[in-house]
């Protein structure tokens, strides 16, 4: 899709990206975040869906089923997700190059989203030493999440 210029930069986020760093756990879908142009206000999903339909993958609800996986495409929706896409790691999955969000961005996004399952996953990152706390602190400061972090620590860290 990048080669076809349907999307510019992208990164795997959400649970599957988390699993890159921590133990595997059950999850329903694969989240792909993509960068949007600064002037764009719309979700820009139509060209993406059209391109995928040309490959035989059609949207069903919020997902596009690709090789058995429900995939959700999400535009960068704030400066944090935008930065997470821009600074994502390049990796290979079965020899296929792809990009996955960095641990510090994933933890910051989970903290910002703030559901119980996000806090549980943050715990996994911390327990398994999967995030560099200095880098995380930089991201949290940059995106004004320090208060939320302190609140999380107060509630959930022993």
């Amino acid at each position: 899709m990048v080669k076809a210029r349907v999307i510019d930069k992208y990164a795997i986020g959400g649970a599957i990206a988390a699993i890159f760093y921590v133990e595997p756990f059950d999850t329903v879908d694969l989240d792909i975040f993509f960068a949007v142009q600064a002037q764009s206000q719309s979700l820009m999903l139509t060209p993406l869906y059209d391109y995928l339909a040309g490959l035989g993958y059609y949207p069903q609800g919020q997902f596009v089923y690709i090789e058995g996986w429900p995939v959700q495409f999400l535009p960068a929706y704030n400066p944090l997700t935008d930065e997470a896409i821009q600074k994502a790691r390049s990796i290979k999955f079965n020899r296929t190059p792809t990009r996955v969000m960095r641990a510090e961005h994933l933890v910051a996004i989970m903290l910002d989203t703030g559901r119980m399952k996000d806090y549980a996953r943050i715990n996994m990152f911390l327990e398994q030493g999967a995030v560099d706390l200095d880098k995380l602190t930089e991201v949290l400061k940059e995106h004004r999440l320090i208060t939320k972090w302190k609140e999380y620590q107060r509630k959930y860290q022993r």
Partner: protein
Amino acid sequence: MKKYPDITSLLESKAEHRRRLAQLPFEEKIKIVEQLQKRREQIKNNARRIIKGNRQRAGR
């Protein structure tokens, strides 16, 4: 007062197992996720069958 066994070492070995899983290659982890998804579907299907059977027995 009732005495309970100390399970600290059991909890530590569980945590160690989770750390080992976290070190697996990404491809291996995704295979495990796919197995978990299949297991979830089996559990859901079994639960549906049990609920349906219970309803039929109750004459609903």
